[in-house]
């Protein structure tokens, strides 16, 4: 069970060497507030899909290391072990493990409105890939059905990106991101040749964000280029704990959308009362096939799915995630039950000056 499709696998030895080298560099440049940090999430997840239950302990460490006044190196890794029942009426469980990098990028803040990113980075298409994939942020274990559209299946690109804020005012802000990825087929870094970008407008008073995305795969099946279009709308009214997020994505062979709402009440002692920590979540999603050339990761037939979640935000950066999903499709309906507990950690790599 993969929460999202990281394609970058990395040996522990190489990960350790990379970590040590960048830490050393960062130690030389660190100032009082710029000590490198180690953050991330650790969790234990279960998923029962069509009657088969898998268990997945996982850890997603994040490393962020400033270098001087303008550089930063950051990376997120994904380490998991998945235990699933043996197939074919065999008793017992089998297990698989996975170690990989979600991204490993260098950032150069070139000007107040321009940041240049190089390396392997998350593709800036719609919002889910960049903002909601971390284990300690997502409300549901499962990514949306349309996740692979525009994210080149894996969600990572290897090349360069420019991004930043075009304008930021108290009443509105406008930002952008544009990238180019080369084709990389090594074991550590796999990416498709592609290019694209995203722009979005945010209205703080209304709590409204509207954005458009576009990218283009420059390789793959069929042997022609493929365009992907995306749009997202987030509405988070001020002074409430209600959030409505949605995305639409369209590719050459399929399209779909998801809408997710979550809410925490402040009416009974605030967000930190035992009632305020309860977080009901609902997500509705649909996918539509435009033809039968399934070059993407979407279901092979039109699919509808409703996800009902009930999360609980415990003290000390811990969340309990539970959800029930009902999926409807012409090739069979199914129930999906998921539970998990996630702890988010954050600390400096050393005490600092």
């Amino acid at each position, binding site marked *: 069970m993969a929460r999202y499709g990281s394609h970058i696998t990395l040996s522990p030895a190489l990960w350790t060497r990379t970590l040590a080298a960048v830490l050393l560099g960062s130690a030389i440049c660190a*100032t*009082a*507030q*710029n*000590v*490198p*940090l180690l*953050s991330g999430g650790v969790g234990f997840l279960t998923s029962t899909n069509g009657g088969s*239950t898998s268990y997945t302990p996982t850890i997603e460490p994040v490393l*962020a290391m*400033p270098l001087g006044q303008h550089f*930063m190196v*950051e990376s997120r890794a994904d380490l998991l072990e998945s235990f699933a029942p043996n197939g074919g009426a065999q008793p017992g469980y089998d297990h698989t493990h996975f170690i990989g990098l979600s991204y490993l990028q260098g950032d150069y*803040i070139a000007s*107040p*409105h321009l940041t240049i*990113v190089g390396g392997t980075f998350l593709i800036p298409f719609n919002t889910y890939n*960049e*903002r909601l994939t*971390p284990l300690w*942020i997502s409300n549901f274990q499962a990514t949306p059905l349309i996740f692979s559209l525009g994210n080149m299946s894996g969600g990572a690109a290897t090349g360069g990106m420019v*991004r*930043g*804020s075009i*304008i*930021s005012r108290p009443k509105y*802000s406008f*930002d*952008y*991101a544009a990238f180019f990825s080369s084709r990389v087929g090594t074991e550590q870094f796999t990416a498709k040749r592609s290019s694209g970008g995203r722009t979005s407008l*945010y209205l*703080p008073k209304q709590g409204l964000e509207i954005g458009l995305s576009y990218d283009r795969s420059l390789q793959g099946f069929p042997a022609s280029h493929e365009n992907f279009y995306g749009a997202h709308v*987030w509405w*988070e009214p001020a002074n409430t704990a209600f*959030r409505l997020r949605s995305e639409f994505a369209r590719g050459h062979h399929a399209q779909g959308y998801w809408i997710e709402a979550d809410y925490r009440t402040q009416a009974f*002692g*605030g*967000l*930190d*009362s*035992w009632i305020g*920590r*309860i977080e009901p979540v609902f997500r509705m999603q649909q996918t539509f096939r435009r033809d039968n050339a399934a070059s993407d990761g979407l279901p092979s037939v039109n699919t509808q799915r409703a996800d009902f979640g*009930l999360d*609980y*935000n*415990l*003290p*000390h*950066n811990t969340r*309990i995630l*539970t959800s*029930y999903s009902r999926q409807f499709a012409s090739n069979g309906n199914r129930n999906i*039950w998921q*539970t998990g507990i996630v702890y*988010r950690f*954050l*600390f*400096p790599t050393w005490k*600092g000056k």
Partner: protein
Amino acid sequence: MTMTSRVLLLTFAALLSTPLHSQDAPLKAALPPPTESKQAATAAAPKPHESEGQRIFQQNCSRCHNAPEGFPPSISGTIVRHMRVRASLSQHDEQELLHFLNP
């Protein structure tokens, strides 16, 4: 035991294990401790940096994730720089956010 029962039991156990009294808010806990005296707190309006930085924090950080429950000042600059890249903050926003986290 069915999966439904397991989910209900888990949720119920979580509710029981949480103290009934109010906890420190995650956002408040992530913020620096107040430095003003009682007189200053009652007499003056919020500092410009504080209100502007708090607005930026709520509009860019809290929209996606709960604020972590406290962190040492030594990594505040690293967090802000990470957020500048991830959330496409302007230089002004970055500075205000840094002042907010380190008044």
